[in-house]
């Protein structure tokens, strides 16, 4: 079996699957149950001044019969005293010395406050610290969480304060509620972060009850924005991880999270540069037992490919992820419909006709059967038809031979630019 051990900035764990800081890691009882089930690490529910929570805290977005496509919460950080958490951290670490136990921290933007919590937490024997600059609701209104996580200077300064006192690696957890996450990631690195983790939850309102006109969830008739996570946020998270991974100024390891629900998702994050993954919603949906298939699926995947260690896949796809301007304008794919597989729902036709390039014709073959045919010369290769097609294998996107040599937008603009220079010189 492939070696699944991972190392995030010096924090080692038996496998890359960590529970994210959230309700699943609220207590020693839970984290120990998780380790028994096979989880490699856990980031403890964020420690700080114990808060008060409201009742009616979560809501989910179900999509066409599948439950929990997205998950929304208005919960804050831990509501338990620091000493209680630290005692349980200590006991957990004693029982599971080889598992990663990381404490998530959040205090007001104040040097003394950071020094105090860092020291106290490290004394309990944690393997590392994660600074929560991400929580988008409640804490932000108090100047913490994403409120400080959206301001690069504050990220840098607070990371620095934590680093002044810290002896274990410091991970900075970033908020996605920002236009360009590399700005805050860079600030964290400048502040001395040993790693960054992302994403925390995305500002959200799960829904509005159209009968009562109340927000979902509501607390006694009032609601407030929450944080969104789960499968629906995966593409957003994956992009943020990839953008950081390919940015040379963010030269620290990344812990990836946001919608990881199975081993395939985990591999995607790792290929795009994450050294490990953290998971919250999937565990909340199904329980800690999901880790069995995460591990089994990942190790089978590696074994099938003769890859000896999971570390060997980290970042392997990063070089393939670039800027739009570096994409080949002359690469061409077109849709091809396999009429023997097609069930004639005509969804591709109407999608292309109404919303793309009007190049799928509804015809009849010589024996009068309805068939669909792509006029390849008009097809721009947008993929829409193959996306709406409900049948495996009915529409293939085929790569055509290059009609012109490869040329990116950047190359093209340079080319045309060079012409202008000449013109000016004449």
């Amino acid at each position, binding site marked *: 079996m492939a070696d699944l051990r991972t190392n995030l900035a010096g924090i080692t764990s038996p496998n890359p699957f960590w529970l994210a800081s959230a309700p699943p890691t609220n207590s020693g009882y839970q984290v120990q149950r998780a380790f028994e089930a096979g989880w490699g690490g856990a980031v403890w529910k964020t420690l700080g001044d114990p808060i008060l929570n409201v009742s009616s805290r979560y809501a989910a977005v179900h999509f066409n019969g599948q439950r929990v496509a997205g998950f929304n919460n208005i919960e804050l950080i831990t509501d338990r005293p620091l000493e209680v958490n630290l005692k349980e951290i200590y006991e957990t670490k004693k029982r599971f010395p080889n598992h990663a136990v990381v404490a998530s921290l959040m205090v007001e933007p104040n040097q003394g406050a950071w020094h105090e919590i860092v020291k106290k937490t490290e004394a309990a024997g944690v393997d590392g610290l994660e600074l929560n600059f991400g929580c988008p609701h409640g804490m932000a209104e108090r100047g913490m969480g994403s409120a400080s996580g959206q301001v690069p200077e504050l990220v840098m300064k607070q990371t620095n304060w934590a680093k002044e006192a810290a002896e274990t690696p410091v991970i900075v957890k970033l908020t996605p509620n920002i236009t360009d996450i590399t700005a805050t990631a860079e600030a964290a690195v400048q502040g001395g972060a040993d790693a960054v983790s992302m994403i925390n939850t995305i500002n959200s309102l799960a829904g509005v009850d159209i009968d009562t006109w109340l927000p979902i969830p509501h607390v006694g008739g009032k609601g407030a924005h929450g944080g969104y996570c789960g499968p629906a946020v995966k593409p957003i998270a994956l992009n943020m991880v990839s953008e950081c991974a390919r940015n040379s100024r963010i030269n620290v390891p990344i812990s990836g999270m946001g919608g990881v629900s199975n081993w395939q998702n985990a591999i995607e994050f790792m290929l795009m540069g994450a050294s490990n993954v953290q998971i919250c919603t999937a565990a909340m949906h199904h329980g800690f037992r999901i880790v069995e298939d995460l591990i089994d699926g990942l190790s089978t995947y590696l074994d099938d490919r003769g890859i000896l260690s999971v570390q060997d896949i980290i970042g392997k796809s990063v070089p393939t992820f670039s800027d739009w301007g570096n994409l080949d*304008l002359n690469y061409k794919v077109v849709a091809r419909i396999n009429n023997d597989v097609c069930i004639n729902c005509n969804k591709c036709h109407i999608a292309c006709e109404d919303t793309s390039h009007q190049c799928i014709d509804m015809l009849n073959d010589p024996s009068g059967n309805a068939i669909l045919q792509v006029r390849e010369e008009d097809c721009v290769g947008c993929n829409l038809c193959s996306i709406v097609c409900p049948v495996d294998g009915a529409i293939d996107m085929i790569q055509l031979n290059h009609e*012109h040599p490869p040329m990116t937008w950047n190359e093209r603009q340079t*080319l045309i630019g060079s012409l*202008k220079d000449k013109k000016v010189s004449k």
Partner: protein
Amino acid sequence: MREHQHYLIEREKIDYFIDRGYRIHGITENLSGAFIEFRLKDNKTDEESTEILHIQTPDGRKYFSALLLKQIQTVS
């Protein structure tokens, strides 16, 4: 007219000038698409004739870009 048809016509026009020895001299791109300035020097008279083509289709604009690349590569 289908866009591809439109492109074929544009390509023919571009080829027309290229076949007659015109060179792409300048390209201006704006909200209306691209304008290619073709020039041809008469070897005897040394007179230069200029032709402007308005290219509207995306495929047309990819096409002249490829020709331009070829033109620059054969010069150097």
